[in-house]
C-alpha cells in the first residue's frame, strides 16, 4: 500500500486528507499516478484538472512529473507552496 497525502485546496477537492491505496503495477511515474488518480472520483478529477498547479512530493522530496514512484511509501499532492 502507498499512503497518499493531500494538502490545501487539493485536499478540499479530493475530500480527504489522506488515503492508503494499492497502486496498479503499471504506474511508473508521477504523471502516471496523477492520470490514474484523476479517474478515481469526481473530486480527484477536480483536484487534478490543472496539472500546472500541482506539485508532488515523493517520500517527502519534490518530484517532477517524470520522476519514478517505484517503491515510494508516501506520495503527497499539493498546490505550489505559499509560506514565508
Amino acid at each position, binding site marked *: 500500500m502507498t499512503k497518499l*497525502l493531500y*494538502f*490545501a*485546496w487539493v485536499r478540499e477537492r479530493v475530500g480527504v486528507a489522506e488515503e492508503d491505496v494499492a497502486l496498479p503495477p503499471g504506474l511508473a511515474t508521477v504523471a502516471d499516478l496523477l492520470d490514474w488518480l484523476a479517474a478515481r472520483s469526481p473530486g480527484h478529477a477536480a483536484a487534478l484538472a490543472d496539472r500546472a498547479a500541482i506539485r508532488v*512530493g515523493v517520500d*517527502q*522530496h*519534490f518530484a517532477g512529473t517524470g520522476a519514478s514512484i517505484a517503491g515510494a511509501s508516501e506520495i*503527497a499532492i*499539493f*498546490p*505550489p*507552496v*505559499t*509560506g*514565508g
Partner: protein
Amino acid sequence: MIRCRVQTVSFDLGAEAAALTAGRTDIGAVVTFTGLVRDVAMTLEHYPGMTERQMQSVADAAAARWPVLAGTLIHRYGDLAPGDPIVLVAVAASHRAAAFEAASFLIDWLKTRAPFWKHEAGNGWVAARAGDEAAAARWARP
C-alpha cells in the same frame, strides 16, 4: 549550524537574536528578517515531516554557501492574526555581507521550497506569486 523550528506559538525576535550570540565573541554581524501577517487573518497549513526536512535542507544549503556562524529559522503554522509574526530568519556571521546574503537566500528559498500553504479568512487559498520563484531563482548558480 542553522537551527530550524516549526511551531504554532509566536517567537521573540530579540531573544532569538541574543541566543545566537550568547557567549561568543567571533560574531560581527547578525541579520534578521521577520515576516508578518498583512491585513487579513489567515491559517497556515503545512506538511509535517517534509516541512522540517525542507527547512533543514535550505539551512544546510545556506551554511554550505556562506560562512554562517549560527542561525535560526522559525516558521509558524495554524491560525494567525494581522500583525502576527509568521517567519523568522536570523543569521550570524563574522561580517555583514555573508549575514545579509545568507538571510536573503534563506527567506527566498524557504518561500518556494518549504511546504506551507496560506488560507486567508474570506479570500481562500493564497496563490503562489511568480515573483517569489524569480527571487529564489536569482540564487541559482551558473
